[in-house]
């Protein structure tokens, strides 16, 4: 409690911590709901996963780091054993959505857009609070609008719907956070220095432009191999981006961010990214298994070239 009354902590940090507590509570609710859900085939595993995650998200700040780390490891066990399942879900019916749309109409776009508008608005006009708190404010506006538009939207509806979505995306939704932690472990263990030493034997050190080209192409190639741009960015930024580009004073904002979308060019070109390139083939009943990828190769190549040029010019 002293955290929230302390004068040393900024209002932005306090509000952010409240947001994390709300996120943690939604996650805890998901765990508890599934623990008591007879239709969930893996009640225990599902509950362990979401409840440990909820505790770390909501109260991680006040828990010793070692205990947080141990809880994360415990969390991943049911996920790895595929014991995190989906229970009873109440998907909205097509008829219901249509009938509400007939009432609300195009106004439904307002609550959908309010979150992004608040995020940008807070980041620009209230930087001491920041984009994350802006998202929180946008969510509140969005909820109020939805309640005003349709009295059926009771608080329980929002909670049930978020539990439904969270259960459906499942443990894989934690992948970006785990990858970010892995990146930090790579850095702490000195992995970046070793890769840098190896790459340094092949490409000349000190030439930022060559570094940018290698960084961008490596991002795309590793994403093609791994099928996941998020996995590539943690490894390649630590190993190539930092020592060969950023160390020479290039702008970390432009280089760090655009490298990720260079990776996305790889995502467009690989069957490894099955969700985006192979699943649609089945869903649309296409004859050519590579029908989606073939239609993406030219844009991917043009985009990679554009981004390399952009990074070199704007660095």
């Amino acid at each position, binding site marked *: 409690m002293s955290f929230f009354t302390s004068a040393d902590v900024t209002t932005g940090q306090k509000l952010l911590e409240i*947001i*994390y507590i709300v*996120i943690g509570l939604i996650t805890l609710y998901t765990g508890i709901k599934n623990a008591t859900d007879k239709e969930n085939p893996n009640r225990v595993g599902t509950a362990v996963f979401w409840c440990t995650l909820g505790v770390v998200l909501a109260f991680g700040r006040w828990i010793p*780091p070692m205990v947080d*780390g*141990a809880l994360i*490891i415990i969390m991943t066990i049911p*996920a*790895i054993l595929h014991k995190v399942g989906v229970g009873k879900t109440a998907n909205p019916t097509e008829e219901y*959505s*249509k009938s509400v*749309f007939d009432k609300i109409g195009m106004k439904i776009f307002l609550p*959908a*857009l309010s*979150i*992004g*508008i608040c*995020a*940008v608005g807070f980041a620009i006009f209230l930087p001491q609070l920041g*984009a*994350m708190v802006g998202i*929180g404010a946008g969510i509140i506006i*969005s909820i109020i609008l939805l309640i005003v538009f349709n009295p059926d*939207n009771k608080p329980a*509806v*929002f*909670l049930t*719907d*978020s539990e439904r979505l969270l259960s459906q995306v499942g443990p894989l*939704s*934690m*992948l970006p*956070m*785990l990858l970010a*932690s*892995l990146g930090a*472990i*790579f*850095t702490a263990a000195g*992995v*970046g*220095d070793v890769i840098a030493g190896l790459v340094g034997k092949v490409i000349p050190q000190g030439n930022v432009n060559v570094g940018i080209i290698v960084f961008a192409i490596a991002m795309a190639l590793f994403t093609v191999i791994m*099928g996941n741009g998020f996995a590539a960015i*943690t*490894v390649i*930024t630590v190993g190539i981006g930092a020592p060969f580009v950023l160390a020479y004073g290039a702008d*970390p904002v432009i280089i*760090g*961010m*655009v490298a*990720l*979308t260079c990776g996305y060019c790889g995502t*467009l070109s690989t069957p*490894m990214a099955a969700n985006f390139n192979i699943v649609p083939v089945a869903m*649309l009943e296409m004859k050519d298994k590579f*029908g*989606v990828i073939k239609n993406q190769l030219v*844009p991917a190549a043009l985009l990679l070239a554009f*981004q390399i040029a952009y990074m070199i010019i*704007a660095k």
Partner: protein
Amino acid sequence: MALIKLLGVLIVIVGFALKLDSILIVISAAIVTALVGGLGVTGLLETLGTTFVANRSMAIFILIMLVTGTLERNGLRNAAAALIGKVKNASPGKIIGAYGIMRAVFAAFNASFGGVAGFVRPVIMPMMEGSIESRGLKINEDYMDNLKGMASGMENIAWFFCQVLFVGGAGGLLVQSTLEPLGYHVELIDLAKAEIPVAIFAVIVGIVYYYIRDKKLAKKYYGEDIAKIAVEEEK
């Protein structure tokens, strides 16, 4: 033996390439790297705990889910279908382009309408089929196959390169937390701004490329017929 430190990186690359369980890959790589890198069990748990808690902003998507499902329940997808339905008498290439613009704009606000399963198949495909039939032509399967590929491509391109404009999206957050331990502090809004030229270029490339490709394919599969119709339309 510095090279042994790369064991974790190898696990990530090979693991993802072999499509092993993603979380298993990441946790094994973390444990192996911590052990061969001299962090030990204590160092592993401490680094994992500290960074995970420091990166909780990446869990903001859970808060956003508080409204995503309810928006869908209240007809967001129907509204999007009604919006794109206003594009009348357009060739399949133009329909794909219009969808690209709509998807791009909403991606910047992190709003999606259900992807290929939820939107392309039930809304965009019938629109393209209707567009072909309204010209008195029969559906050619190979042509349709390519149109499906192009619609999926537009869907992916617009989503990938415009969702990074959303301040607080997973991409920007991951970049921010990857750069932080390397000693570079960056703001989310600046990361989003850096992607504006890329996003605009991506949408234009998608629209122009698929428009030209559709014209070429229509000529290939319908030849003279399509030319005749074009002339009649002009009269």
